[in-house]
């Protein structure tokens, strides 16, 4: 630990406390001040200085949809062409797993071949599971799909599966190509980076309207939105994985005289494969995250099932459909991880003599199952689709449970809520909303300068000004308040859980199962019971955000503690530390950079949840995006979306810079 670092540490807090005190005073008296000076601009950004960007973007969209042309064909023809390219395979997969193959359109259609029967689909996933790893994996994924059949989610689940089977390959292939491009040409990487940031931080709702206009109505628009949302991690992972290929392998490639193309596809990509699979896994998970939103613009499937159940307040049915999404995520996640961990294939030399059936036992037996059940299904419908009379539902149980809690414990919940509102939420809200906007921008700029120099200061200040200039300052502050309080709570709960998970193997198992479920279960499923218990308002929204954003706080804290070098801990033990001292003086400080990264991710997730919480009536940027969606106002949505992204980018850059500083201070990195 170096000397200058410590001096900074001493100087830093004093400065920030002083700034905080000034801000507090300004925040408390800004209204009086603006009245006394007759300067309303102090508290409210003057309407006359606003940028007309909203209208410009809407006009640009209109031009793009109605007039833009490349000469031979219009821009809309071009996007509709892309839509067709996606729709053909989508229709094919959908026909294969659920709809059956038909000719003709609309109600004229007549079936020429049935879809795969439910038994055949399960046989396929079991076969894949066994090929990828083992019988136990096969049993797991088979069980997952069996759940879908038994709980009556089969039809919707297959529609969702079809869209995942299309969006994932496109997302992976697109991400791979862009990632390779970024690896090869540094200039391209520079351009791509900010675009990826935007793709990940602008809420999907913000660009749904333009996508609907350009790609038409129905599942394709939803697929396009899913791909945009799910692709960025693949691009990043690809670039990282390619950079991580050991130099020896690269040199070997050069030695045997590879061309550039051979070098890329025969040497680099295969050796980066395990890393690439992490990206594939991310694309799958994010695609499933999008299921609910996609169903709002016509994707149907499990997301629609969740939404329509909750509109009927059928909490049990909503939960079952939500769990079906989780189950599907588990199955696809385990399969993709198994493929990632699979040892490289060894080409066997002696298979030539055997028959086709013997060489491909799985393919042939699955084919046999498909044909047999398909034919049997013509006679006995139970072979084709799982009989409705055998489905289970736990719906009434959940409804009764929520009612029981509601009737018996509402007053206790109300007391907790009132306490939190009075002592935490409302003071924070008042403080943030009181800050005069010019001072707010100044603080953000200063923070940027302190942590990352003048470049970061310029970026942070510029983005903050962008928000103010579009008249969204107040909404941005509410966003910050809701997000900030939630992140605080998520960290208070999540970091100790993470530490516990790292120290205790049994706790780890339970905690990671809960965290995984919370992340893949659509938040809408628990949002409605939360509203029943805590009413519409910021508190309900906060609970939903905390539940969703908890995961990274736990994971990164656990990872940080686990990856501390054992010598350092042993040194602590030798020096006679108690367990508590060990944790406080050695483990936590050393895990700090990881914890900060986790904090960063928690904030990103909290921001991405705000659009969902707008559905229970918050008044932040999320609501602005949501209003724009329901009014089909592209300009308004995109501006509000960009403002969310601006907050995310400011926070991300400042935190990343401070994590770097922390690392340097701890001497972990040069």
């Amino acid at each position: 630990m170096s000397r200058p670092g410590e001096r900074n540490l001493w100087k830093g807090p004093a400065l920030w406390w002083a700034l905080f005190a000034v801000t507090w005073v300004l925040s408390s008296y800004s209204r009086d001040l603006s009245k006394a000076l007759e300067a309303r601009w102090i508290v409210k950004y003057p309407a006359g200085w606003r940028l007309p960007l909203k209208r410009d973007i809407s006009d640009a969209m209109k031009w793009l949809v109605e007039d833009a042309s490349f000469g031979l064909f219009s821009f809309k023809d071009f996007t509709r062409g892309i839509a067709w390219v996606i729709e053909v395979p989508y229709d094919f997969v959908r026909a294969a797993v659920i709809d059956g193959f038909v000719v003709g359109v609309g109600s004229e259609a007549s079936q020429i071949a049935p879809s795969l029967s439910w038994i055949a689909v399960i046989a396929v996933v079991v076969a894949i599971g066994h090929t990828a790893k083992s019988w136990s994996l096969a049993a797991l994924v088979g069980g997952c799909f069996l759940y879908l059949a038994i709980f009556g989610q089969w039809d919707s689940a297959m529609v969702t599966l079809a869209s995942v089977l299309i969006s994932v390959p496109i997302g992976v292939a697109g991400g791979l190509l862009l990632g390779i491009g970024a690896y090869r040409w540094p200039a391209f990487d520079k351009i791509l980076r900010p675009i990826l940031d935007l793709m990940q931080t602008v809420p999907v709702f913000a660009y749904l309207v333009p996508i609907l206009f350009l790609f038409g109505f129905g599942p394709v628009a939803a697929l396009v939105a899913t791909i945009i949302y799910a692709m960025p991690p693949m691009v990043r992972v690809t670039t990282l994985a390619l950079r991580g290929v050991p130099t020896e392998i690269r040199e070997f490639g050069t030695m045997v005289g590879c061309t550039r193309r051979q070098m890329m596809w025969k040497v680099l990509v295969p050796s980066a494969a395990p890393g690439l699979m992490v990206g594939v896994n991310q694309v799958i998970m994010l695609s499933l995250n999008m299921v609910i939103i996609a169903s709002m613009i016509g994707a149907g499937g499990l997301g629609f099932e969740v939404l329509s159940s909750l509109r009927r307040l059928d909490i049990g049915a909503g939960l079952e459909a939500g769990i079906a999404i989780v189950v599907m995520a588990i199955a696809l996640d385990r399969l993709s991880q198994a493929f990632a961990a699979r040892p490289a294939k060894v080409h066997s030399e002696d298979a030539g003599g055997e028959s086709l059936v013997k060489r491909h036992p799985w393919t042939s037996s699955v084919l046999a199952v498909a044909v047999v059940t398909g034919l049997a299904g013509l006679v006995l419908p139970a072979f084709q689709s799982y009989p409705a009379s055998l489905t289970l539902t736990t719906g009434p149980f959940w409804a009764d449970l929520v009612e029981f809690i509601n009737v018996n414990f509402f007053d206790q919940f109300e007391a907790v809520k009132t306490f939190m509102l009075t002592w935490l939420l409302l003071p924070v809200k008042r403080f943030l909303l009181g800050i005069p906007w010019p001072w707010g921008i100044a603080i953000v700029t200063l923070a940027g300068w302190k942590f990352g120099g003048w470049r970061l200061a310029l970026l942070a200040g510029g983005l903050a000004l962008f928000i103010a200039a579009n008249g969204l300052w107040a909404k941005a502050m509410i966003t910050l308040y809701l997000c900030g309080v939630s992140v605080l709570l998520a960290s208070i709960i999540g970091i100790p859980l993470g530490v516990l998970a790292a120290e205790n193997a049994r706790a780890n198992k339970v905690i990671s199962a809960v965290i995984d479920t919370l992340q893949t279960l659509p938040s809408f499923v628990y949002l409605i019971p939360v509203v029943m218990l805590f009413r519409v308002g910021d508190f309900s929204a906060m609970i939903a955000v905390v539940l969703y954003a908890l995961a990274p706080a736990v994971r990164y804290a656990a990872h940080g503690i686990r990856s501390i070098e054992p010598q350092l801990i042993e040194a602590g033990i030798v020096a006679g530390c108690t367990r508590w001292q060990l944790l406080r003086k050695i483990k936590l400080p050393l895990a700090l950079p990881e914890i900060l990264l986790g904090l960063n991710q928690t904030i990103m997730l909290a921001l991405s949840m705000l659009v969902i919480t707008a559905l229970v009536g918050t008044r932040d940027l999320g609501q602005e995006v949501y209003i724009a969606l329901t009014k089909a106002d592209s300009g308004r949505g995109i501006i509000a979306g960009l403002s969310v992204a601006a907050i995310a980018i400011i926070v991300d850059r400042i935190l990343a810079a401070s994590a770097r500083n922390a690392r340097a201070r701890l001497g972990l990195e040069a």
Partner: protein
Amino acid sequence: MKRGLSLIAALSAATYLSAAVPAATAAENQDPIKLTLHDWTGQLLTTKIMGEVLKKGGYNVEYVQADYIAQFAGLKTGDLHVAMEIWETTGREAMDEAVATGSVENLGETGMQAIEEWWYPSYMKEVCPGLPDWKALNDCAEEFASPETAPKGRYLGGPVTWGGFDDERVEALEMDFEVVHAGTDAALFAELESAYQRKAPVLLWVYAPHWAPVKYDGEWVEFPAFSAECYSDPSVGENPDLAYDCGKPRGPIWKVSWSGVKDKWPGAHKAIKAFHIENDEMGAMVTKVDLDGKDLDGVVAEWVAANEKRWSGWISK
């Protein structure tokens, strides 16, 4: 929604010819008529009933999931053809804008009347005996209060996107209430369900036709009757200085279509114009689906079977 597979269709053109002989030869054009589906049960019922009737008339029908407001973009271009429920109260603005372009046609009323108003469960009458008159609300505002709004009463309004001028109404009628906006109607009715289970005070925006006023026992608050002047002219109504000092408008639910429907499928155009169902009938069907858990397509089939005389009149007109 079964979608045609263009690839397969092209490959097996011969099969297509034999398979796709129209069920009835009355239809003018065998391209599918695309009806939009939204996410509330009443609309699904209205649309599916219309769709099934059109099928009986020999038309090729396709259902497309689309957003309530965003669908107008599709209706203008002819990507989508028919939307069966545009509520006077929530969709009027978008509808008028679309009709003004000339690419969308208003096909008249469905026969259902949209009601949107402040609503309370009957047990609240015991604590606030003056109800349903709105003036009684001020006397018992505290009964409706929550810790956040006390001493003012709490009124749970619809999502801000629904409009409705509740904030203005509270101010104009000098009511001691605070308006809290729910984000979606799922959240709105979740809160009603919760309060109803505990017999707790609640006052909120309810609309009909919907399952809620059927499932829960309650009444609409009676405000001074709505008039267009009341909304536009401050001097009219209770408060001489402010507008919106009256109840909400009640209005028809409209049917709209792409304007090309008239030329492409004239018979279907007439049938959609003739479609007529009233609140009670629809309310009963919505209840069957949402509260009794019956299959939606089954309820539609039941209606079609029971009302052959009515709908055959629509097609033949």
